[in-house]
């Protein structure tokens, strides 16, 4: 393993627990600290599945391979342990939780992670100051902070709320699953600004997207193409432009 590897996925094979369907068929990825990697690929190729398996969702069985965060095997960890270890997934479809205030949720999450890491809780005052500042950057108003988590939020508001959580939790490995879908042009800029503000030599991003548009704002270092449960090609930012212009047909043809 290279000195500065953040996330290393080797030969990852995953199938559904309930049925005999294989979804990931040997994924290999090595993401360095401080870098932005993008994954593109046709619908159903396994991008969201990869993000779920990395963050520990039930229902998937890893039949082969490994995934290590900062040298530590994460596949045996509980989802909350992975979060405390610094992994964050911005969901493609954020979940609504009626009756739990967004602010309460954020504070519970921040302090739960601190506790799992053996750190002190953040004081109510410090938390409030921080969340207000970060929410303001993302144009999330006080009302949205008070409302129940994601309930009645528009599609774009939900995605901005994911970025707010990421900004508050300060993970070192951020996976963004189609955070650009459902965003208008201005919201996409806001989200990109939010992400760019978090870029640092100690933090790595894995951005799943279908569109070059997002990558205009969040400049990737490496672009991967996933098809049928495998990474079939990796390259520089120009690969995303190629997809935008020509679709996947050529790439899929090359491999076949």
């Amino acid at each position, binding site marked *: 393993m290279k000195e500065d590897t953040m996330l290393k996925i080797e030969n990852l094979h995953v199938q559904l627990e309930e049925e005999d369907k294989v979804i990931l068929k040997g994924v290999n990825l090595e993401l360095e600290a401080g870098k932005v990697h993008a994954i593109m690929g046709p619908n159903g190729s396994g991008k969201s599945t990869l993000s779920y398996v990395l963050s520990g969702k039930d229902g998937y069985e890893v039949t082969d391979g490994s995934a290590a965060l900062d040298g530590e095997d994460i596949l045996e960890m*509980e989802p909350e342990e992975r979060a405390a270890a610094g992994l964050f997934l911005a969901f493609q479809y954020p*979940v609504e939780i009626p009756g*739990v205030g967004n602010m309460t*949720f954020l504070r519970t*999450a921040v302090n739960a992670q601190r506790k799992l890491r053996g750190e002190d809780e953040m004081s109510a005052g410090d938390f409030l100051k921080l969340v207000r500042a970060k929410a303001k950057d993302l144009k999330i108003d006080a009302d949205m902070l008070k409302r*129940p988590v994601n309930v009645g939020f528009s599609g774009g508001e939900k995605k901005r709320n994911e970025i707010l959580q990421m900004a508050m*939790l300060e993970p070192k490995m951020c996976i963004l699953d189609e955070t650009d879908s459902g965003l208008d042009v201005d919201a996409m800029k806001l989200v990109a600004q939010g992400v760019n503000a978090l870029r640092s030599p100690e933090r790595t991003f894995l951005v799943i997207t279908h569109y070059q548009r997002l990558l205009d704002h969040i400049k990737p270092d490496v672009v991967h193409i996933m098809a049928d449960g495998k990474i079939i090609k990796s390259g520089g930012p120009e690969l995303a432009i190629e997809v935008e212009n020509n679709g996947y047909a050529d790439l899929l043809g090359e491999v076949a």
Partner: protein
Amino acid sequence: MPFTPKRTVKSPAKLDLTAATLAHVPSFDGLGWADKARAAARARVAEMGMPLGRDEYWKYTDTKPFTNVDPDHTGAIAATDVFGASGAVTITITNGKVQGELPVVDGLDIQCLSAAADAEIHWAQDTFGVLEAAGQNNVERPLAALTTALATEGILIHATKDVTQPVRIVYTTDGGQANVHHVIKVAPKAGVTILEEGLAGARASTNMEVAVADGARFDHLRVLPLDAERTLSNHCFANLGAQSTFRSFTLTPGGQMTRNEAVIDINGDDATAHIAGACLGDGAFHHDDTVFITHDAVNCESRQVFKKVLRNGATGVFQGKILVQPDAQKTDGYQISQSLLLDDDSQFLAKPELEIYADDVACSHGSTSGAIDEDALFYLRSRGVPHAHAIDLLTLSFMAEAIEEIADDALAETVLAFLTETLEVRRA
């Protein structure tokens, strides 16, 4: 075909149990207003008979803990302090006796039954045992009549102004049986807020009769104690005048055997009745909400919202009825009873009923049993919230609709904070 009252079968077993029960009930030959009402209540028990498992209203809940002539519940119940900081005046009832002086509040005449009962006449006598007796018309509730007969203590409140400062009743007990009977009369345009916490006895039976006059307001919040070892039977009988509002909410965070009955008669036009409850059941826990709301006036609204979160074999019961009489046009009736089952051993038994004899009404009811939403659970855990904590957040999420029924925001916050703390302690 109008509503036909339900009468139970007077089986030999019922007659035997009734005789054994009445052997412990005095004959009340005193001349005071209260003894006359008690003698009448005793006669009602004799006529109706004590409840048995075969009775329709006792299909889901074991009658024995309530009817056992020699109960062995002797443990003390730990006191709580949920509403201590609410600014309420407090009345403490210890081992079934009011302690100290009763508070004096402008607009409220506050008395206790033990002191008022010997008078020849009293303002409570047109209500004491009267609403309970009326509540027997539709469905027999012999436990309530027995409580009217046996209770020697209770709080009598006559509200003549709209008083926002709550009256808090705190129960403490060293154990044993206790019977308490409250009467709340709210004069036209007056209002009162009653907070209750604790338990009168290890086996406790409580009646509350509430007469809400035209344009009056009644708010009621009750938090039952955590102790597992106890049996509780509550009956609330309410009568609502025109443009009056009635709201009652009960939180049951623990306990072994609880039956909360409410009989609400809406007799005046444009009145509103909301009754809600939330409970947290664990292990040998059985919680029964039995509600009967009768709409007998025009343009009234009623809501029943009950949420139960159950685990480790706990049982929840809901029997809720909305009866809309022929002239009760423009009735808006809503009823929801839901359970969140945290494991396969727990169960929820629900019998929602609508019986409607008017044609221009909007009534809806729903009853569901569900498991934890796995997507929401994963979402919370992926943010670093540990499994057990995430379940508790989803528990609060599930109960939110019931807690929202508490009209006063500060009191709702107080209940939510207590519930959150209870969950934290349970988790630790």
